[in-house]
């Protein structure tokens, strides 16, 4: 749904304050107002409505559990905002465990002075992202810190979900010959954020691809079950970081084919101009799948039939060589090592 339409459906309630103050986090009347007219009314559900210290949940069996904190700057960026990201990020982490995300906790650390309408916009994004992902926000917390002690808003979300009955996701399942599939174009989120970073602004229509991926992972698990050896979402540090972690933790070698890795033309061009490598750029709306060779093409076809993974592609193979390392080959026959990044990518001089 378009952002403007979301806002239309959920107009800002009449608060008698324009900005967040320390009093909103003190547990008194203002906290109550903010929660009652804001958070609770917007995110309404059976569990949250109990207004208890915690949520009462009915869960049995194998459960995946994940937490993540979101501190992105700027909080509103092309294609999304911190609220949407906070829901999708944790939903996806739970989904990568082969689980079906069901419940989220939601905690805010707000900086004194945050305009209430901005907070509301973020809440609305959270509401719609949660609805889209099919998860309920069942418990949470709000704290306010002094101006200058935070960057507008920090969000922590924690997610719970039952493991899919057919899933057997485990790093140790990956085997020599397994294919590495990426679900869609890489580096889009990282470059979208960079385009609005102070001091580096450049004009582009690149938008973050932040989205929940649980429907895709469930779709694949329904169809391929335990043949799916591994899901991972390559967020911070990009594909390069996540693949290096997988190679090191599994003691296998990974080989990528440079020309097979999908990157949108605009993103590729931005990386060229800025001297950045898409392999090291952050992602939010894609994931990687490790599967046996014999079903790899079918997995790609299933993914490509969906709106969210139209550019899915096989990008590499697991090998029993150069253990713990990731290599990349190009059509010329050249090879290089894809190293773990040292930190955030720094634009080069020339």
């Amino acid at each position: 749904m378009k952002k403007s339409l979301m806002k239309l459906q959920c107009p800002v309630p009449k608060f008698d304050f324009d900005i967040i103050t320390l009093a909103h986090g003190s547990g008194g009347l203002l906290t109550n107002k903010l929660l009652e007219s804001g958070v609770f009314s917007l995110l309404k559900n059976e569990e949250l409505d109990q207004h208890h210290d915690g949520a009462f949940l009915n869960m049995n069996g194998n459960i995946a559990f994940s937490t993540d904190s979101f501190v992105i700057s700027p909080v509103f960026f092309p294609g999304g905002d911190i609220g949407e990201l906070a829901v999708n990020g944790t939903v996806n982490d739970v989904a990568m465990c082969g689980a079906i995300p069901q419940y989220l906790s939601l905690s805010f650390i707000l900086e004194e002075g945050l305009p209430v309408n901005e907070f509301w916009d973020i809440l609305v994004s959270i509401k719609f992202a949660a609805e889209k992902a099919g998860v309920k926000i069942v418990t949470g917390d709000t704290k306010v810190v002094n101006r200058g002690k935070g960057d507008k808003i920090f969000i922590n979300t924690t997610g719970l979900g039952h493991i899919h009955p057919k899933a057997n996701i485990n790093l140790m399942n990956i085997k020599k010959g397994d294919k590495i599939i990426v679900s869609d174009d890489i580096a889009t989120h990282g470059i979208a954020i960079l385009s609005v970073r102070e001091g580096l602004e450049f004009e582009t229509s690149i938008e973050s691809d932040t989205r929940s991926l649980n429907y895709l992972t469930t779709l694949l698990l329904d169809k391929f079950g335990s043949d799916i050896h591994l899901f991972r979402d390559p967020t911070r540090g990009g594909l390069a970081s996540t693949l290096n972690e997988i190679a090191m933790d599994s003691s296998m070698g990974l080989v990528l084919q440079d020309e097979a890795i999908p990157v949108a033309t605009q993103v590729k061009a931005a990386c060229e101009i800025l001297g950045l490598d898409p392999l090291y750029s952050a992602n939010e709306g894609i994931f990687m799948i490790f599967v046996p060779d014999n079903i790899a093409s079918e997995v790609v076809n299933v993914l490509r039939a969906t709106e969210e993974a139209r550019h899915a592609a096989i990008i590499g193979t697991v090998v029993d060589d150069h253990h713990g390392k990731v290599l990349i080959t190009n059509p010329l026959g050249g090879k290089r090592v894809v190293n773990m990044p040292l930190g955030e990518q720094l634009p080069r001089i020339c």
Partner: protein
Amino acid sequence: MKYLSEYRNPELAKKVLHEIEKTITKSWNIMEVCGGQTHSLVKNGILSVLPKKITMLHGPGCPVCVTPLNLIDKAIYLAEKEDVILCSFGDMLRVPGSKKNLLEAKAQGADVRILYSPLEAVTLAKQNTDKEVVFFAVGFETTAPANALSVLHAEKLGLTNYSILTSHVLVPPAITALMEDPESNIDAFLAAGHVCSIMGYWEYFPLVEKYKIPIVVTGFEPLDLLQGILMVVKQLEEGRAEVENQYVRMVKEKGNTTAQKIISDVFEVGDQMWRGIGTIGKSGFHLRGKYARFDANKKFSIHIKMASENKECIAGNIMKGISKPFECSQFGKACTPQNPLGAPMVSSEGACAAYYNFSTIYKTMDL
């Protein structure tokens, strides 16, 4: 992207590679001067497909690598001053100073900003009149016009809070210094395409004449580099020593004369210290006297002790092509990209970092 993908065509690249293999009969040491070319050779895996008879030597053309230690300490000193915003290109931030780097200074509270253009620093100065904005103006001839232009802009805007801390180095004097070094074993040079797009290649004729060494102006894409190497190999095999231009789509003999005018208006040529190599006569750009008020070195009284380089680091010999990174006793041990002892281990353009990325699997990859 069209103009890039055309120069990355693997089929054409294979043809050129085949041509190099057919032409070469002897072993040759070819130095690419520019760090951007080193980066591309590594990134595109070209080092791993070249015939064994070719040894690529990675020259001193990484601006990050040759910026003097002392100047990095100065930049850190300025950044840590209350009223200073220090602006820099991104990859300078990790270069080790004598005690810390700019990233660490930033973490400790210094106001350090990563910018793409010095003109953005001028805008910052305009917006922050209560602060001093200093741009860390490093680089070869390529970045000199934009740095010079920033000074002209600041002057036009009447800004008194903008200055640049310069470390501008020049390619032709570096080639001369390398050729005069008795230990050097360079058979030919790939000259840096970007530098020549500004300066042209007329400066190389006397060098070719004097040292009887082929110089081919070369671009940065895989096809550019392979063609440049082929042109060099042909000259070497035929016993010729000429200036040739592979990068014709960008470089003219006289270069970009407008940019040169801006450079010479703002800068004058003077002696310059190169990290790891030492001082090379007339090898740098310094602000002219009439722009002294924009010279951060003169504007601020900078009190730092002259630090000396880590004695174990053989960066100088590596940048001169005399030693290979893995001949250094510290390589991959005390000195890694996570903990660099010297600048060539910092930037992805630095020779040591480039080799480090390969070396860990060197034996299994048959490079």
